[in-house]
């Protein structure tokens, strides 16, 4: 494996941990009493640190190390979580993300600022710690368990000895803390019995020590002797010794332990539960496979499908019944393989959604707006290729909603709305599609304003604009170069307009719908295909040529009579049971060559009704050949750059190429 492969793996894994950190930190921000979240974050940061250090990404390791220290203090309840700490941690995550994103130049990353910020909050935390120490007496700073106390009691009974709490402070400059502490403990062991140390023996062995060590120590010797002996060990800056009164401790234990004892078991059982969960997760065996491999597999399955349909066709032509059984099982097998491969490419939409809460939080702080953001349907799965593409459009839509949709708290109160605006992002499965809905309860889109802007921008004359229905006027936001925003802000209006969103979604074979009521809010619906590589399509003949129409676009098919076709403003329409259906003759659109003699002498016309941006359009075709699964192959040749109306081509059972119609750009 080459370094770059390791690097990719590191990036992928590091991003997962970052995601987890972000997610948990958001939860912690909502509810800072749940310290289990800190534990989760600590583990994630720790793993990240280890990974980064192994790979030699020292800056990342350093930042995570400092984060760990901070989180450790929170965990030990030395500091209370406040918004400053949360913000600093968020900043750390951004810094880490930046570092991971630009991993090649990681060593040049400037982390001094972030380390300074981290130090600021931790040092303010240290003060907090000192304050606590000044108030509480030393004897309380060490927490003796029941069996510890019993041990002390039995030791005291045996000999004429007393219990001390020894506090040893190591030099700031002490390098081998473990060794120094070991020496101190050995000295103490010579004089008596060490009952308990804080930090624990394991922590000391693993080097997990601060400069201070608290030791509960039973000895027959005098205090001064003990101090003298310990002070002989070098690199010790201070030794403090206080006698411990067992009776006092026991009394305190009885009053204090009542609330503290139940809290300890719950937290441990919780963490135990968690570790068990982790084990469960780990027991599902999985392998990391690169997308490229899955893509190759997908392509090969595509070829297999083509060959299968070719075989089917040959069997029909040769009229051999013998092949039927084998072909049927081949059919089943290829179908199964296809389903498996498609499933393997499926990824939970959560992968895209989970970065949005953080984004909306930052945006709303920036905009001084109050927004409650909810996501739903995070478990819905989508094909990897689709998922990769929808991130940017969704970011754009969310930004729009925060920027233009939801009002400031003052404005909302004035309008008799709740102070906090709501923004909901919901994914759901709708047959072979995934529906993503973004709903806000903000200003809504005002058709009147839209018409005004359209006139101002010179897109329409006043009379033309007034002719537009409210719906059409609202849909103007999808026109290129149309921005309804009165002023361009940092957040939106940066050039990637709603038209880009619409184009992207339509490129993926999806559609965008818009619904908005003034002052009540806007809902934007994205309908996306589950996958892009293989689609169900209806094969049709136009003249002698065969085209594939994606089933996703098709509403139904109809037979109409030529005499029923009317012309409105030069466009062909037909009145079908009260619905006025615009007609498009594919012969004309595709400029299909035809000889006049056999051209539609029949009065009956076949029409495939398709949907485009919520509107129905009838496509006149000559023959329906039936439904078929087709593999989309792109037509990415320089020479075809300006060809519109096709989303790609596919290979038919007979080996010929058929073009796949792209309804949104065709008509």
């Amino acid at each position, binding site marked *: 494996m080459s370094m770059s492969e390791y690097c990719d793996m590191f990036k992928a894994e590091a991003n997962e941990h970052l995601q987890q950190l972000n997610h948990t930190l958001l939860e912690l921000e909502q509810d800072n009493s749940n310290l289990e979240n800190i534990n989760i974050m600590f583990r994630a940061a720790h793993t990240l640190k280890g990974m980064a250090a192994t790979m030699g990404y020292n800056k990342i390791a350093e930042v995570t190390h400092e984060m760990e220290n901070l989180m450790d203090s929170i965990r030990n309840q030395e500091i209370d979580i406040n918004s400053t700490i949360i913000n600093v941690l968020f900043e750390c995550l951004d810094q880490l993300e930046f570092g991971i994103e630009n991993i090649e130049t990681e060593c040049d990353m400037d982390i001094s600022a972030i380390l300074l910020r981290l130090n600021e909050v931790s040092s303010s935390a240290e003060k907090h710690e000192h304050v606590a120490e000044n108030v509480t007496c030393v004897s309380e700073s060490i927490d003796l368990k029941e069996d510890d106390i019993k041990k002390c009691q039995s030791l005291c009974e045996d000999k004429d000895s007393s219990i001390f709490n020894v506090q040893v402070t190591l030099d700031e400059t002490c390098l081998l803390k473990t060794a120094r502490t070991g020496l101190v403990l050995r000295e103490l062991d010579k004089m008596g019995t060490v009952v308990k140390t804080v930090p624990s023996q394991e922590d000391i062995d693993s080097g997990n020590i601060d400069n201070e060590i608290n030791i509960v120590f039973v000895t027959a010797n005098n205090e001064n002797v003990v101090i003298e002996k310990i002070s002989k060990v070098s690199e010790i800056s201070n030794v403090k010794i206080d006698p411990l009164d067992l009776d006092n401790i026991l009394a305190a234990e009885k009053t204090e332990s009542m609330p503290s004892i139940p809290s300890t078991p719950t937290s441990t059982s919780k963490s135990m539960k968690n570790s068990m969960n982790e084990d469960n997760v780990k027991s599902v065996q999985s392998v990391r496979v690169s997308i490229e491999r899955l893509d190759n597999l997908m392509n090969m399955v595509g070829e297999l499908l083509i060959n299968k349909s070719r075989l089917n066709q040959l069997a029909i032509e040769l009229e051999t019944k013998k092949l039927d059984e084998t072909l049927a099982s081949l059919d089943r097998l290829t179908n199964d393989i296809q389903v498996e491969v498609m499933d393997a490419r499926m990824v939970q939409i959560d992968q895209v959604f989970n970065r949005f809460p953080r984004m909306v939080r930052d945006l709303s702080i920036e905009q001084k707006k109050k927004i409650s953001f909810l996501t739903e349907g995070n478990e819905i799965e989508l094909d990897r290729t689709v998922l990769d593409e929808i991130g940017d459009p969704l970011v754009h839509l969310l930004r729009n909603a925060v920027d233009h949709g939801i009002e400031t708290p003052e404005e909302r109160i004035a309008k008799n709305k709740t102070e906090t605006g709501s923004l909901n992002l919901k994914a759901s499965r709708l047959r072979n599609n995934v529906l993503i809905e973004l709903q806000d309860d903000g200003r809504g889109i005002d058709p009147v304003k839209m018409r005004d802007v359209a006139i101002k921008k010179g897109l329409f004359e006043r009379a033309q604009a007034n002719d537009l229905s409210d719906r059409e006027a609202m849909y103007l936001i999808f026109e290129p170069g149309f921005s309804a925003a009165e002023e361009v802000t940092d957040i939106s209006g940066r050039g990637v307009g709603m038209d880009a969103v619409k184009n992207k979604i339509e490129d993926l074979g999806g559609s965008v719908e818009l619904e908005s009521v003034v002052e009540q809010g806007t809902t934007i619906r994205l309908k996306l295909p589950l996958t892009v590589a293989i689609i169900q399509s209806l094969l049709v003949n136009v003249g002698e040529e065969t085209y594939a129409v994606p089933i996703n676009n098709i509403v139904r098919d109809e037979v109409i009579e030529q005499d029923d076709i009317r012309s409105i403003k030069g466009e062909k329409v037909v009145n079908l049971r009260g619905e006025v259906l615009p007609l498009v003759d594919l012969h004309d659109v595709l*400029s299909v060559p035809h000889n006049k003699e056999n051209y539609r002498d029949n009065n009956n016309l076949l029409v495939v009704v398709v949907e485009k941006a919520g509107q129905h359009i009838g496509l006149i075709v000559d023959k329906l050949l039936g439904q078929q699964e087709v593999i989309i*192959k792109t*037509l990415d040749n320089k*020479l075809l750059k300006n*060809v519109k109306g*096709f989303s790609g081509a596919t290979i038919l059972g007979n*080996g010929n*190429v058929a073009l796949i119609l792209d309804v949104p750009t065709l008509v």
Partner: protein
Amino acid sequence: MQENMLKIDKKVDEDDENVLQLVIFQLGGEEFAVDIMQVQEIIRMPESTRIPQAPDYVKGVINLRGKIIVVINLDVKFNIEAKEIDENSRVIVVEVEDNILGMVVDSVSDVISLPHSNVENAPDIITSKIKAEYIQGVGKLDDRLLILLDLKRVLQESEMEHIEKIKKSA
């Protein structure tokens, strides 16, 4: 032994430098040549699918073992008259700057080696018929005159033409 092999290798290399390997094809009564390094394969004319709205010299797309490839009519491009498609017609599949495409030709006759010294700049007589920038040079082989095509130019320019066409129509 090894030394010998090295010598042989070197000799072949030297040959490569001085000699062009060319695929010769016929189109509208002329003989053309393209560098063999640009040619991927030569196939019989398969069924092709027309692409509406494509430039006029694009014949359509074909299925080449599962890959979809654009095929162009060189005769339309060069403004000469090709023969009707018959059993001698071939598609030369070429790769130019990561773009794979097929060129329909009347027939493919042979592959020859031509020393660089036999290639001259195009005389004006031929250029009157085919644009000079498409021609890399004229190769002389005995008494035959071979028009060496500069495929990069042929395909690059087609893009420019297309853009101009759009500009005019807009």
